[in-house]
């Protein structure tokens, strides 16, 4: 079939931030499916909790402090996270490097506290279904936390190399900021379910 040139694309930019970029949509897609996983795990917890009249099944209360500290660290981390986002959009290298170092540290810190969260549940996964669900919920969130911290560290290293001076890499930083928001956001319902729902029973 013969072609008839009807438009010129040569002036278009070679990268875009946020919803302009396919990677942003891909990240959103993965958030949607992982969010569904969180919702279903939480639903399974509630299904079991509502099926048994004395939920917690005579287990001791979990100690909420490690979880609360993680929550506080998460909320604090949102500030540098979004400062980083602004600099990523402007493609300015030095602040982005500083921001990624800060965010890597603010990712490792809750991970360290998370180590103490598991014993603070005051129950093992194989004691009863209540214990199983607590470990599952915490484990599910920890998987996401580890993944994102790993991603942040690799991206940080990358931005210290010559590969960093590229619009797409700055776009990746923006998507990393976006995903960290997701990790923080999903912690809120999980935190409530793990530490505060059992106190109702």
């Amino acid at each position, binding site marked *: *079939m*013969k*072609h*008839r*040139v*009807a*438009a*010129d*694309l*040569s*002036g*278009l*930019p*070679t*990268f*875009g*931030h946020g*919803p*302009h*970029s*396919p990677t942003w*949509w*891909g990240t959103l*897609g993965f958030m*949607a*499916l*992982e969010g*569904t*996983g969180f919702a*279903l*795990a939480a639903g*399974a917890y509630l*299904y*079991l909790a509502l*099926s*048994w009249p004395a939920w917690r*099944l005579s287990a001791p209360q979990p100690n909420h402090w490690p979880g609360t500290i993680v929550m506080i660290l998460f909320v604090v981390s949102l500030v540098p996270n979004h400062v980083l986002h602004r600099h990523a*959009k*402007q*493609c*300015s290298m*030095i602040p982005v490097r500083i921001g990624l170092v800060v965010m890597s540290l603010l990712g490792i810190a809750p991970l360290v506290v998370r180590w103490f969260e598991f014993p603070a549940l005051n129950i093992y*996964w*194989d*004691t*009863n*279904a*209540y*214990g*199983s*669900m607590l470990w*599952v919920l915490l484990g599910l969130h920890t998987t996401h936390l580890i993944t994102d911290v790993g991603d942040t560290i*690799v991206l940080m290293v*990358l931005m210290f190399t010559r*590969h960093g*001076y*590229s*619009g*797409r890499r*700055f776009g990746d930083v923006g998507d990393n900021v976006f995903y960290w928001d997701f990790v923080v956001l999903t912690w809120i319902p999980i935190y409530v379910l793990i530490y505060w729902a059992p106190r109702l029973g």
Partner: protein
Amino acid sequence: MSSADVTGDRHIPEPDPAKGDLAPERDGPRDTGMDDASLHRWLERTWRTPSGIVGALSSVDHKVIARRYLITAFVFLGLGGLNAVAMRIQLSGPQRGLIGPDLYNQLFTMHGVTMMFLFAVPIVQATGIYLVPLMVGTRNIAFPRLNAFSYWIYVSGGAFAWVSFALNMAPDVGWFAYVPLSGPEFAPGKRADVWAQMITYTEVSSLAVAVATIVTVFKQRAPGMSLDKIPLYVWAMLVTSFVVVFAMPAVMITSTFLILDRLVGTHIFNPAEGGDALLFQHLFWFFGHPEVYIIFLPATGMVSSIIPAFARRPTFGHLGLVLSLFAVGLLSFGLWVHHMFATGLPKLGASFFTASSMMIAIPNGVQIFCWLATLWDGRPVIRTPLLFVFGFFFIFVIGGLTGVMLASVPLDLQVHDTYFVVAHFHYVLIGGSVFPLLGAAYFWFPKITGRMMSERLGRWHFWLAFIGFNAAFFPMHLVGLWGMPRRVYTYPAELGWGNINLFISAGALLFFLSFVLFTFNLVHGALKGTSAGNNPWDAGTLEWATSSPPPSYNFARIPIVTHIEPLWAERETLPVATGLRVDARELLISTVAEAHPDIREKSATPSIWPLFAALAVGGTFLYSIFTPWAIVWGAAPIAITLIGWFWPKGDPEDQE
């Protein structure tokens, strides 16, 4: 809309390069004003899959990956079909001693698992991997390396299941593996673990494809392909991908919970320790019912592509068909409990799910009537693809009618776990998905291979399949109503089910033979078929605008869309856009709703790392059926391969 509007003056959010710390853009030759021969040379050099074994294993071309998917899924169809033939020989007479109960349990489980997870879902997604980028007028799928990764994960999951079968270790707990039967107490050994991890492999793979498909449709549509000009097949794949995104995590959660119960002693499904066995069924069917529509919706998209091409007019009720797809996709999440009517649910809940099960017949009915109206008003040319569409109408409507019957609780309780249900879902799945798929094979085969399949053999194939299918499955309604239960490896002669089962087995054999004929036609067509040309059916969508088979870069210049059937609207010359680089894999990113050109984005180059990542992930899954520490040990190779995958290698595609 005139094609000038496509790039009309509007704000392009270009970052100011003076402000950012960016390496200057290294520009290369563009396609603007280039003659066709040099353009082809440049694009072929940039987009081709490298030669050699490593090159083949590194391919990220959506057509190459899709071809592999299609062939692999077809092999699994053959294997699943052989399972069925073995079962039908055993059931062809009362008390036959060919197959014992243990092997029979593995056979029907492998049949279900293979057909659902290794054939039906992968093959509809594979068709989408091939066709969606062509139909939206782009050069590759979004996230091509993720797409390649998904294929390797899928193959390893399938091989894992079938090697287990060869080792007498195949799952034997039914394709839905209910607890407590599949739990630690009643399923010792590794068979149920194989089920659980095979699920995880295949779901990871289809979730990856779903995300890639969604982003391709949202962001890579050709200029001018606004929402109202998206082909129905692409809509169907988009809705399906959304259903995958929201349904598949449920089965991953189910299989993970099961393997945790079995491997590390959690009690999620154990009622003795505060768990609940019914929770398994809820989680499984929250995936399992949408699964039916994951298989069915792409098939409706295929029907919506075949009918206008042969009715010689655009589809009647385009908007109605799109809205029906949405409605079916949404309602598919509200039906799962109708698989659980026999579990003693509260009456009100059961009534709700009866109502929603009947409601989904409405959008499906709308679709059928739109297709009939298209044919009615057109000048239908009866060729093999259309014959299979007629077969689909006939069989699927019967399956739909028994579906409405089964939605009623009293009837469901009577025929629960009998062959009536087996008949129903084979009418729905084979009628609703396999017949359109066979029609689609005849329809798009010329595009994929450049050659036609034999029309005469195609007609033979259709009638053999149609008669064989109905002979095999229609009598199952009767034998089910007489009380023959599912999943029994034999039955006593006194029950009088012998003759009808012999008839069913004969039909099944005929149906199997129809696939042998189909295979012959495929091979014969690929080797000796007549040359197809670009557009043998004179169809209207963009995949027919390029050569058959399409070149590695799909389109020499990005087409511009002005009509829902672009090739019918622009019969003389195709409007195209220029200005892309030819020395790097550049493609066009457009806006979600209007498909305005937005970014010249680089598409990923071939890479071996997705294969390594799949090996690391697959090895971890495999090891994890033996010890939970596999997750810890597997993390390091997974991390290394992912870093290898994403780390820039200095190609022009990695710059900017």
